[in-house]
């Protein structure tokens, strides 16, 4: 059986979740691999959430929020914009491939853009293969 990645998507309520909704109501066909979790704002997304998703078996994590300047809470998405580079640097040190975690800005009117991002990310993660995290942690236990 070919590998199908499991991707966790954290989407902000005001822009990106509505954008994903638009992709649906517009009947756009796109990869079913992203499991969406709606949050009020990307500022709510603690880097812990991303690490937790990876530890619990996600092959990738997609974060989508309002375009800079468009945040419903005026500055929330800038918090995510600042956290992202540090989160990426931590993931790189842990040896997690960069393509597994991705931040994109998607507005409420960008249903097609959301579908394109999901398709592209799914393809990239599919090429990478399953996340090494869970297998490795189980292997560690066996070694002892």
């Amino acid at each position, binding site marked *: 059986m070919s590998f199908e990645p499991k991707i966790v998507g954290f989407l902000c309520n005001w822009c990106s979740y509505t954008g994903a909704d638009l992709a649906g109501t517009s009947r756009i066909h796109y990869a079913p691999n992203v499991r969406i979790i709606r949050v009020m704002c990307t500022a709510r997304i603690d880097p812990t959430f991303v690490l937790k998703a990876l530890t619990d078996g996600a092959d990738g994590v997609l974060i989508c929020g309002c375009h800079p300047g468009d945040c419903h809470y005026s500055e929330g998405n800038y918090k995510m914009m600042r956290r992202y580079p*540090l989160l990426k640097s931590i993931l790189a040190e842990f040896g997690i491939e960069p393509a597994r975690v991705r931040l994109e800005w998607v507005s409420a009117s960008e249903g097609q853009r959301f579908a394109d991002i999901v398709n592209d990310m799914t393809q990239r993660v599919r090429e990478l293969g399953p996340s090494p995290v869970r297998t490795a942690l189980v292997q560690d236990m066996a070694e002892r």
Partner: protein
Amino acid sequence: MADKLQIALYWGAACGGCDVSVLDTNEFILDVAAVADIRLWPIAVDGKYKDLEAMEDGELDLAIFNGAVRNSENEHIAKLLRRKSKLMLAYGACAYMGGIPGLANLTTREKIFETAYLKNPSIEWGNGVVPQPESGINGKTIDLPRFYRRVYRLSSVVDVDYFLPGCPPQPDQVKGALLAVVKGELPPKGSVVGAFEHALCEDCPRTKNEKKIKQFYRPWQVACDPDTCLLEQGVLCAGVATRSGCGVRCPKSGIPCRGCYGPAAGVVDQGAKLASAIASIVDSKDPEEIEGILAGLPDFISFAYRYGVPASLLQRSYRQ
């Protein structure tokens, strides 16, 4: 002898500082000796593994384990102590979270051996001798503990009753923990003892205002104002995500918190929380400028997870 408290102390992968911190209780250690029999303490008292093996299960009242679990010997003794003791205390940052030895989880066993035994400039080149679990000499087999692929915190290997954080724990907290056992006033199992629930900042006497950072500095690059929050002055301080209990010793001495007391209560992953907090105070809305400011934090991961890679969510590197 029978009514005296039976205790054992042991070190796993550790620097010895934790054992010294027990001795830092000064004359109190004599009071301990008056009420307790120290049955095993490799650094200070005679006592062999075979004595430990000969004990009845549950014969010890308290086992104090410092250091991480790096090899099969550490694990063997941890399991032995767990069986022989009614209570198991993970003592210090290494036993609690993996500690400084836990940073080894960001590299591989092969790389460590290469650095230590094959390419180290201070060793004799060319003989290529690397420790083997088993080797033969004069027709006999001798063995060494197996060096594991990664470092584990104590609670990954055995059931732990209490955790006493710190690198090393403060002597007063050590006294408190021992007295609690003597008096039988034990907190619920699984508690972090000798520390508070809240973050270090709450106890830090430095003045805190709004934090907006345009540039980060290494501690040696700036002369910091002694009364203002170090983070506000651009110096990385781990106090925001770290459990208080040390008496704020580092920030009071002008040194940023290094996070040795581990995550504050409710924090799952200390490094992720630090990344979140530190990034939030960057004063810019321009992606490139943000990258530039954050580039002033070389080796951020060693700051964020200095004492806790094995206790973090990801636990180790997955680099192939």
